[in-house]
C-alpha cells in the first residue's frame, strides 16, 4: 500500500498514523498483536508511533480554536452543551425533542475557484462551517448557496438561497457586505444571520449592529440600522417589518437546535424539513395557523411530528415511511399538555 518512492520518514509517519487510527477505533486482539509486533520490530517504529501519538493528543487543543468550535459533524448527546431556553419552558405547549441531528452527506460542500469568487452549497441537513480568507467565519445552513468574493478592495457575500451566519474577524479593515435578494446588509464587526428563503429575506444581528439597505431603493432610501435583539423581515412582496426578539433567545441553528417563539405551525414544518428527509403535512389548512413555541433538535422529523401531535392533541398518521400527516382530533380540539 505504501509506495517505495516515499521517504523513510514519510513512510514511518504514515505507518504510525495508521496504527494510531487503528487503535483509536475498536482494534481486535489480532490488531493489537500485530501492532505490538510492529512497534517492537524497530526502534524507529516505536519512536515514530510515540511522536504521532503525542501529536494526536495535542490535537485536542483544536477545541479551543474557532475552527474546532465550529465543527459541523454533530457531537454525541452527552457532549452537547445543554440547551438554555428559559423562554420556552414557561410556555404551555412546549415541545422538547431529544434525538440527534442527522447530517446528510458530508461531501456536499463544493468550493470552486472561479476567478476570485468561491461558491458554496450545502445539502439537506448539512450545516457547514466556512472559514473566510479574511479570518471571518460563515456558517452555511442546510440547503443554502452562497458566493464569496474576497479581494484587496472587496469583502462580499451573495446569499443565493438559504441562511448563513457571519462572525466577523476583529481585524477586518473594511465592512462585510452580504447581499440577499434585493437586500444589502453591511457590518463592520459582530455576528449576524441573514436568511433568504423562498424570496423572503430576514436579517438578524446577534452581536453588534448591521446596516440594511433596500437595493431597489424605492421606498427605503435610508439604510435601516439594526442592533442585537432585533430582526428585520423583508418579504418577497410587501413591506419590511422590524421585530424584537425576547432576551436570551439564542438562535442556535448552527448547533442543530431550532427554536420557535409563537411561530406558525406551517413555518415550523418548513424549517424542520430543511434537515430531514420525509415530510409532515397538514390534513386541513386551518392547522397551519397553530402557534408553536419551543426548541427542537434538527434532523428528527418523526420525533417532531409526534411531539406536535401530542402538544396540540392532533391525530398523527404515517402514510409511508418518514411521511406524516397531522389531523384534527375526531372529537375535542382541546390542547393537551405534551407527555414526556
Amino acid at each position, binding site marked *: 500500500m505504501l509506495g517505495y518512492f516515499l521517504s523513510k520518514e514519510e513512510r514511518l509517519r504514515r505507518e504510525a*498514523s495508521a496504527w494510531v487510527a487503528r487503535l483509536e*477505533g475498536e482494534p481486535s486482539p489480532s490488531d493489537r498483536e500485530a501492532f505490538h509486533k510492529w512497534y517492537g520490530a524497530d526502534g524507529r517504529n516505536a519512536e515514530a508511533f510515540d511522536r504521532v501519538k503525542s*501529536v494526536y493528543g495535542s490535537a485536542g*487543543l483544536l*477545541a479551543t480554536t474557532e475552527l474546532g468550535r465550529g465543527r459541523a459533524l454533530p457531537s*454525541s448527546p452527552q457532549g452537547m452543551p445543554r440547551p438554555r431556553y428559559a423562554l420556552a419552558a414557561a410556555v404551555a405547549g412546549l415541545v422538547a425533542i431529544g434525538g440527534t441531528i442527522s447530517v446528510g452527506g458530508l461531501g456536499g460542500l463544493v468550493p470552486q475557484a472561479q476567478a476570485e469568487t468561491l461558491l458554496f452549497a450545502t445539502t439537506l441537513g448539512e450545516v457547514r462551517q466556512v472559514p473566510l480568507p479574511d479570518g471571518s467565519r460563515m456558517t452555511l445552513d442546510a440547503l443554502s448557496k452562497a458566493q464569496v468574493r474576497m479581494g484587496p478592495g472587496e469583502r462580499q457575500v451573495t446569499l443565493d438561497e438559504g441562511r448563513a451566519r457571519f462572525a466577523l474577524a476583529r481585524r477586518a479593515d473594511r465592512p462585510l457586505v452580504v447581499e440577499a435578494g434585493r437586500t444589502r446588509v453591511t457590518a463592520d464587526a459582530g455576528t449576524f444571520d441573514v436568511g433568504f428563503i423562498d424570496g423572503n429575506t430576514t436579517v438578524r444581528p446577534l452581536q453588534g449592529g448591521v446596516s440594511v439597505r433596500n437595493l431597489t431603493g424605492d421606498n427605503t432610501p435610508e439604510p435601516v440600522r439594526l442592533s442585537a435583539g432585533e430582526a428585520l423581515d423583508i418579504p418577497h412582496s410587501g413591506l419590511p417589518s422590524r421585530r424584537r426578539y425576547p432576551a436570551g433567545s439564542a438562535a442556535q441553528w448552527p448547533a442543530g437546535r431550532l427554536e420557535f417563539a409563537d411561530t406558525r405551525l406551517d413555518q415550523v414544518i418548513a424549517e424542520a424539513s430543511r434537515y430531514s428527509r420525509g415530510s409532515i403535512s397538514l390534513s386541513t389548512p386551518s392547522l397551519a395557523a397553530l402557534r408553536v413555541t419551543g426548541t427542537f433538535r434538527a434532523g428528527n422529523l418523526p420525533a417532531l411530528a409526534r411531539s406536535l401531535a401530542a402538544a396540540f392533541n392532533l391525530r398523527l398518521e404515517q402514510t409511508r415511511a418518514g411521511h406524516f400527516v397531522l389531523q384534527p382530533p375526531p372529537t375535542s380540539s382541546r390542547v393537551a399538555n405534551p407527555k414526556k
Partner: protein
Amino acid sequence: MLRRLEAAMLKLKPKTREIFMAHRLDGMSYAEIAQRTGLSVKGVEKQMSKAITQIDRLLGRP
C-alpha cells in the same frame, strides 16, 4: 502550535477534517461516524489516519 494545528486541519478535505474533529473532540466512535456519513468503519479509520498524518507533518518533529 494552535496555528499549525489549524493549518493542518485546513489542509484536509472538509470531510476528513469533520470526521477527525468528531472523533477527537466529540469522542464519537468510528461506528457512529460511519453511520452518520455513510462510510464504512474502515473508511472512517482511513480518514482518521489521513488527518493524523497531516497533523504530524506540520507538528511532529521527526
